[in-house]
């Protein structure tokens, strides 16, 4: 009970002040027949820190950590080196154990950080304004669709075939309940994106078109023409970025005309964490759209002495004020992940981000060339950033399991997402970041060859 400061002496003295005979007596409102008067049976009692740590360590050792294997997984979550100072700073108690900054006078640390974060995200995405973060990329994507619905008053969304399948599922699930229409088809294994085809589909019913950049197959394409087509039809273009490091090398969606840019920020500062918590990024190109945005926003203002300061603002959009008329039911952000992202971005700066992106792309080019030499393997992509698709002569689900059996985490099988027997399952998405070594690439090539033999 090391987390409980009260001693039995304290408890007795306090009960005396209250005038209650026991702590149990304070629960008199609970029906007696449903009140548990002792610990629930069958559950363990309290344990020492040492015992808990030992137990958790044993569980952790039943996993194969990415650092302990040649590692090539991406598909929406990317392994990058996170500088040690990032984790040090987010563990500062003043950041870690603070609440949402509802009392701005004593929360300027969190608030200024959020303002900086918003500014960094906006510049990265080529947008005017970003919010203070959301749960993750997939929910930010759905929020973008609903926002486009509010802005255009149209409830149809056209999703690119290259959108991450989990993002598609999330949107389909939510759309079913909230009454949106979703137009989506599974991807075909071509080297090019479907942006041109999407432009042809935009019509007067379309609220938005949603594209991913780079997409789930690692493909990249210019979305300028698509944006023009959307705007001509009164629709918005939503761009999804699941690998923000790419924007250290690639033109931003905002520059190409995307109206809403959302993304998954996990790649910078946050780490893999088996899928969560991650970091939803959300930005708009046109500042007039701000009042339709979901999520928290931090804004600049002044205090009673005229000093610059920061506050949460435009909260009339939010649930705690607007209740059932809010722009979203979200009442949190991913504050600590946003901090990690922001610290990492600050350490990188434009120079570092460009260098990081260049290094990723260089290594990915090396790997693509090397792996395409493996008999039976062909590389799908012409253009890509740090991730590309290999077409293999078998179901890649089994291939991935076989490679794992040999201690190699060799990529993500598209069959995991598209198990339909139409050929998509014979492909493997390989991500190559700066954490990959020459030995890792050789090892993957050899293991692929072995497993395909």
């Amino acid at each position, binding site marked *: 009970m090391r987390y409980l400061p009260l001693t039995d002496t304290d408890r007795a003295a306090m009960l005396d002040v209250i005038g209650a005979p026991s702590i149990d007596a304070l629960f008199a409102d609970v029906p007696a027949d449903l009140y548990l008067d002792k*610990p629930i049976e069958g559950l363990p009692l309290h344990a020492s820190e040492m015992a808990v740590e030992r137990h958790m360590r044993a569980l952790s050792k039943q996993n194969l950590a990415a650092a302990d294997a040649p590692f090539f997984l991406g598909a929406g979550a990317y392994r990058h080196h996170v500088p040690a100072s990032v984790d040090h700073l987010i563990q500062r108690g003043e950041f870690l154990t603070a609440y949402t900054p509802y009392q701005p006078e004593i929360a300027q640390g969190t608030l200024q950080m959020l303002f900086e974060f918003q500014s960094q995200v906006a510049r990265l995405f080529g947008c005017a304004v970003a919010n203070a973060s959301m749960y993750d990329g997939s929910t930010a994507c759905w929020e973008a669709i609903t926002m486009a619905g509010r802005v255009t008053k149209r409830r149809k969304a056209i999703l690119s075939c290259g959108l991450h399948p989990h993002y598609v599922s999330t949107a389909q699930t939510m759309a079913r309940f909230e009454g949106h229409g979703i137009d989506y088809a599974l991807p075909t294994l071509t080297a090019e994106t479907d942006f041109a085809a999407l432009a042809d589909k935009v019509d007067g019913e379309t609220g938005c078109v949603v594209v991913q950049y780079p997409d789930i197959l690692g493909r990249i394409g210019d979305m300028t023409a698509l944006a023009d087509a959307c705007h001509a039809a009164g629709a918005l273009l939503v761009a999804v970025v699941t690998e923000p490091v790419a924007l250290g090398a690639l033109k931003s969606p905002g520059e190409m005309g995307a109206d809403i840019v959302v993304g998954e920020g996990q790649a910078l500062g946050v780490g893999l964490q088996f899928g969560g*918590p991650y970091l939803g990024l959300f930005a708009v190109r046109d500042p007039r759209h701000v009042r339709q945005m979901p999520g928290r926003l931090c804004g600049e203002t002044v205090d009673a002495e005229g000093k610059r300061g920061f506050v949460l603002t435009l909260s009339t959009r939010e649930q705690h004020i607007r209740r059932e008329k809010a722009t979203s039911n979200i009442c949190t952000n991913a504050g600590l992940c946003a901090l990690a992202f922001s610290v990492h971005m600050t350490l990188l700066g434009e120079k570092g981000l460009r260098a990081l992106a260049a290094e990723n792309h260089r290594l990915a080019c090396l790997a693509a060339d090397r792996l395409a030499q493996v008999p039976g393997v062909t590389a799908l992509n012409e253009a890509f950033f740090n991730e590309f698709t290999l077409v293999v002569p078998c179901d890649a689900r089994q291939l991935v399991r076989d490679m794992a059996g040999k201690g190699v985490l060799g990529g993500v099988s598209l069959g995991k997402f598209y198990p339909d027997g139409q050929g998509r399952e014979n492909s493997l998405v390989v991500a190559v970041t700066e954490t990959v070594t020459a030995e890792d690439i050789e090892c993957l090539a050899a293991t692929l060859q072995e497993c395909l033999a």
Partner: protein
Amino acid sequence: LEEPLVFEIGNTETTGVDFPSPLTLAGGAGGGPDTGSGSTPTADSSRVREGNRLGGLDRSESFGLPGLSEPETVRHYTRLSRQNYAIDCGIFPLGSCTMKHNPRLNEKVARMPGFSDLHPLQPESTVQGALGVIDELAHWLVSLTGMAGVAMSPKAGAHGELCGILTIRAALEARGDARQVILVPESAHGTNPATAAFAGYAVENIPATAEGRVDLAALEARLGPDVAAVMITNPNTCGLFEREMKAISDAVHAAGAFVYCDGANFNAVVGRVRPGDLGVDAMHINLHKTFSTPHGGGGPGSGPVVLSEALMPFAPLPFVRKTDAGFDLIEEEDDAAAPQSFGRMAAFHGQMGMFTRALAYILSHGADGLRQVSGDAVLNANYILRRCEDVLDAPFGATGPCMHEALFSDAGFAEGVATLDLAKALIDEGFHPMTMYFPLVVHGAMLVEPTECESKATLDQFIMALRSIAERARAGDESLHQAPQLAPRRRLDETLAARRPVLAWEG
């Protein structure tokens, strides 16, 4: 010294990271550290095609992202942090937000590479321990709540609410029942009506009784074939236990509807009453409130939803299934294991980083410790209630003990003195204020939640400060309007911020 923005001190030519230069490495001199453990491929180690393969989409123009060296970065964020108040600095008695101690063991555990350095799409055989964590935490949540199962993937409390309501809607749809209304008490958290609306329901309020609880008679009167669910917070947002919860549930069930419980206040009763025994069908659990995961200045949260037998078949994807051979992760809608699942709410499997922390906390306290947690939390709140009710109006103080929160109103304050003034004056005394103006059903509400993590000595200090400010508020002390005077900032102009929004650096 004021800390400037990173945009004001950084520039696009400075960076706090180094990357190996291929030239240096090729020369061999820079390769020292790589010896023995893997080296970065060099330019001549493979055939690189000329140029890049970015498809002509190179980002050629500067986008103005400032960088700092590592020493400057550490200092910038250290200085910023020192402008924050946090639970590590003192009591943080935000009612309904539950600021409890975040054990450092949890942070250590979450950073074990076997948890933190796993990709969500790794083959199941390589993540059995991680799936085991999810399963073990699920077992605790189900046991503590007396429910049939739990959906682990929701990413925060509000997401959990949405999950619960969607599950209910899926269950109703499965029986062909198109009910349109969700009933919510006046005192509910704003997320409740927002969630119901987002799930496509009309929201109607349920009135409260004079003693701050749901009006059972009014509720029964409103129940009918159009009502899909009732969303109730228990203990409620006035800090009171809903004595008639079982009767409410029975009435709701009799009307063919479901009971959603907002689990934000589960920390007040954990180990002492099981929501399942009260007839609840779905309840989200904020892991940070009851199970000590850090708030981090506003998230990330994690909101697993426990479900009754009737709702379990409709739970969202993905989920973990235990088999003889180990753990499976059920991810696909067409999986035979999940024929009625309503689908996926987000990418991947939930907030793993919060699961490891919550499990470490739960194992540390154990079944006995968790019961003591709720006891001490309620004891601390009642102590504050009773020590302050002579100088601060306690609207429901006469009806019996409160739960984990002591609720006061501004009745008795002099004309012109508001709850806000009292709150800001607490800052000058070195304390974080309580929750202000919530619940809405009490005028000028002040909701004080000390949690179980405060010592009697801290409570006594806090009570002394609160009492002294309350006396000043009753006496109409004008200087309260000037508070805070000792904080990093004086009162901030929120109207200006909203009227002319500056949401990004424009320098």
